[in-house]
């Protein structure tokens, strides 16, 4: 039986990942800031365990890694993220910027690093992080959402560095592009979470080690950096 760890698994894309992997018979470790409130996640079944995680808090990450010591993880999906402010450039403040860069860029790296022994003990050895078309610079011809864009671009380049660093460990580091999905983040516009996650899981299932450092989309299409 394979094991997947999904951060931010209490709603949206994270919850759908948990639902589909659980339905496939995987062991699912889901994290949420408040496990007591993660009722939809808990209800998925006995193969789902829920741990508390505040992704920007190094002590919280360390506690999670401590709880999971010795547990092999096949696939890590660093999914937790925030949309950031939608204000014009003039109205963006340092605190808005730093917070989103911490949640969307720093935290996935910190989580992956803390769980490296678990990934090494796993069979599939996949460290995935949820990116976005908005992180692409080459495809950006419409502007908007400065902070979110910057955070995903930063995530992309660091995942490339991680792929380089972890190559000797045989860990595949991959970025995921789930598409525009009906979640709280998008104000419920876009495709259904089920379609996004089905496509993204298909992409994950057909990964090879040579893909490490790249980005895969739910629709199988590639995008520029």
């Amino acid at each position, binding site marked *: 039986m394979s094991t997947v760890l999904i951060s931010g698994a209490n709603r949206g894309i994270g919850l759908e990942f948990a639902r589909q992997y659980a339905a496939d018979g995987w062991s699912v470790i889901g994290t949420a800031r408040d496990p007591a409130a993660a009722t939809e996640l808990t209800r998925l079944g006995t193969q789902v365990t829920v741990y508390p995680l505040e992704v*920007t808090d*190094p002590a919280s990450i360390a506690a999670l890694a401590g709880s999971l010591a010795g547990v092999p993880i096949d696939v890590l999906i660093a999914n937790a993220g925030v949309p950031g402010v939608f204000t014009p*450039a*003039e109205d*963006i403040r*340092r605190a808005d*910027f*730093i917070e989103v*860069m*911490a949640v969307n*860029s*720093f935290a996935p*790296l*910190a989580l*992956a*690093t803390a769980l*490296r022994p678990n990934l090494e003990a796993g069979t599939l050895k996949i460290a995935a992080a949820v990116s976005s078309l908005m*992180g*692409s*610079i*080459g495809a*950006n*011809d*419409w*502007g*908007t*959402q*400065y902070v979110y*864009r*910057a*955070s995903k*671009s*930063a*995530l*992309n*380049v*660091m995942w*490339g*560095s*991680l792929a*380089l*660093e972890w190559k000797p460990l045989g860990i595949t580091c991959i970025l995921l592009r789930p598409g525009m999905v009906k979640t709280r983040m998008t104000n419920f516009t876009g495709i259904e979470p089920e379609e996004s996650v089905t496509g993204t899981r298909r992409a994950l299932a057909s990964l090879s080690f040579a893909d490490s450092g790249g980005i895969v989309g739910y629709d199988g299409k590639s995008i*520029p*950096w």
Partner: protein
Amino acid sequence: MKPRVLITAANRGLGLEFARAYAADGWAVVGTSRDTADTADLRAAGDDVTVLPFDARDDESIESLVRTVGNIPLDVVIANAGVGDSTRNASEVTREMWTEIIGINTWAPFRLAVALRPNLERGTHKKLVGISSLAASMGSGYNVPGGYIYRASKTALNQLYHTLSVEWRPLSIVCLVMRPGRARTKLTGFRGDISAEESATGMKQAIMNATLDQTGSFIGYDGQQVAW
């Protein structure tokens, strides 16, 4: 009226060479320095050099610089101030280092650019320049390990300046991010393939050559496009 350039961290390294190169061309230079006691070389860079304090870590310092500049036209703004990152692997990246470097290398150049937009609009050349790095490139096969936060900070800067270029195109402001090459400066521990002068004069030429059609692009000191 002679053109005017504003350069952050112009007291040494690439910033100082930019100041010298623009001054030699007869430009007025506004150069900033975090340490106002270390500005003798900058003051000597030309005969129309104004030195102002600026600390990229401090929002009040950014806003203070903007207030001091007032409504004078700026033809070129070069957000050059930046710091390196000594992390060799992912496990060395701490939240504190992350916040510090992202604040200096990404947030400050963004905020400064946005706050100085009215000055750029009043200028003739209308060019905003961020100093990036080949390390920010994902598509060029860059494979130097480590430097996680530095890479992230510069890739995020690329994205922010590119986004500005999209939104500012109707204002005819040309936004560029530049690859300075591996220049011998404090940031590289003075180990590099080119001198700071060669890097800065190369970038200055590329900035001069850039038209609105190139806005939003990533250009090297050698004038070549760099992959995102």
